[in-house]
């Protein structure tokens, strides 16, 4: 059974596209046939992070309008035979996507893929609604700061009331992914801690991705950060994929690297 996974947040710039690329690639590397769908019409970003921007011919809107078929539109990833990307249109506006159109494309994708990863645009308006409406599971990407947590909370409300599953009396399975986490800044009281965020959102924690130079480096090279298995962010994303597939993996990168003053004094 194909699973539709939405990567959503409410707030912009928190790491949805980075996460879509990493999780999608991670699933494909573990043998699942995966497609990552870019719902951010007009802002096409995913293809850059996946490093396939030079091979885009047709896009999501073409596919919905019947200008192209699935084979012509999907871009095969260079690194994994299991991975495909459905790019967003750069020239159209977000009204080009319709609920029926999206449903039609998702239904087609369900026939071939194990996982359909939907990279949601920011906000809680139409684009974000379309990206989450048909989802079976949602990864809510949150940064450890108050406004991001508040927006995620709002998005969780929409997932439980404005989705197809909720309309059928069912629920979308929710996962919390805390990204850009900096234990040092948490210790200094500049950021919310993992437990603060868990306490407010009260949904299961899928993973904590540390703030990492590796992310920017990876996106500049067009290689999903999960491929960089030496990096902390890459490893944290791999752990998250394992958990998504049902494995129990302890959380890492939650503590500050350097010893705090007290620890240094008492050798803790």
């Amino acid at each position: 059974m194909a699973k539709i996974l939405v990567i959503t947040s409410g707030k912009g710039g928190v790491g949805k596209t980075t996460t879509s690329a990493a999780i999608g690639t991670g699933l494909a590397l573990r043998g699942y046939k995966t497609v990552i769908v870019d719902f951010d019409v007009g802002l096409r970003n995913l293809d850059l992070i996946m490093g396939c921007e030079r091979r885009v011919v047709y896009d999501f809107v073409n596919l919905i309008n019947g200008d192209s078929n699935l084979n012509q539109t999907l871009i095969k990833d260079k690194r994994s035979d299991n991975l495909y990307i459905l790019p967003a249109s750069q020239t159209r506006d977000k009204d080009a996507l319709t609920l029926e159109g999206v449903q039609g494309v998702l239904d087609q994708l369900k026939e071939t893929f194990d996982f359909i990863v939907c990279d949601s645009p920011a906000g809680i308006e139409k684009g974000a609604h379309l990206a989450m409406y048909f989802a079976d599971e949602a990864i809510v990407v949150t940064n450890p700061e108050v406004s991001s947590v508040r927006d995620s909370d709002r998005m969780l409300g929409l997932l439980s009331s404005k989705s197809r599953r909720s309309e059928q009396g069912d629920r979308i399975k929710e996962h919390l992914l805390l990204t850009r986490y900096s234990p040092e800044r948490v210790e200094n009281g500049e950021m919310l801690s993992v437990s603060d965020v868990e306490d407010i959102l009260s949904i299961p924690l899928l993973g904590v991705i540390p703030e990492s130079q590796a992310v920017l480096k990876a996106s500049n090279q067009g290689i999903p950060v999960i491929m960089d298995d030496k990096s902390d962010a890459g490893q944290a994303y791999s752990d998250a994929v394992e958990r998504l597939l049902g494995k129990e993996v302890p959380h890492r990168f939650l503590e500050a690297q350097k010893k705090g003053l007290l620890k240094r004094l008492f050798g803790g």
Partner: protein
Amino acid sequence: MTSDANLDLLDNDPVFHLKGGMLAMTVVELVRQAPERFAMQLAEKVEQAPNFFQDTPVLISLEKLDDRLDIAGLIALLRICRDHGLLPVALRGPEDFRPLAQQASLVLLPPGRGREKVLEAPEPEAQAVAQQPAAAQKPGAAAQPAQGTPTRVITQPVRSGQQVYAPGGDLIVLAPVSAGSELLADGHIHVYGPLRGRALAGVRGDTQARIFCQSLEAELVSVAGQYKVAEDLRRQQWKEAVQISLDGDSLKIAAL
């Protein structure tokens, strides 16, 4: 002491206090001028939830009304409302409705700011079972009409941006209530989890209504229109299990 001084003292003794309060009010938003259909549709709604409409003060909004309303039309409208237990207290609409409002001895309020939500008609019985998975509903259970005041039970977290109202009864929430959300009840509000949003009990004036919560972290609490905001709440029993009730005309917060 002269008698004059005595009089002075009495004169200064306040016979009233001016107070700010917040009350949720039902708005009847008129979209069409059709008295017969209005009467029929209102009667239907009243039949669904008689408690809800008994002596309910309402505000009549004319903002969405396309055609003009004359005084005869307005009087007919008011009569239909009163016949069904509603007590119109004010009109709401642009300034040109002022003469009309004055003729009908109603207050004219300026157009609303769009914070209102459509009230779902309190469906008899369905309220309490609505949150359970469909399979758990006993067949036939929904056939009996509700008796007494309906209680609304919410089992999922109430998230930022969401509003939950229990018309004519109590509201019970078995999950966290997020900052940026709002709970409203004509009766009591119980929150078995942290209360971080707003909670307004007794919104139709029940001064006996109370708020109970496991951890008081609210943005605002109110009983029958008397309210306190987070800034004041933080000073006592913050993050503790409390009950909040009306003591005279101030809110009393007591440990549970």
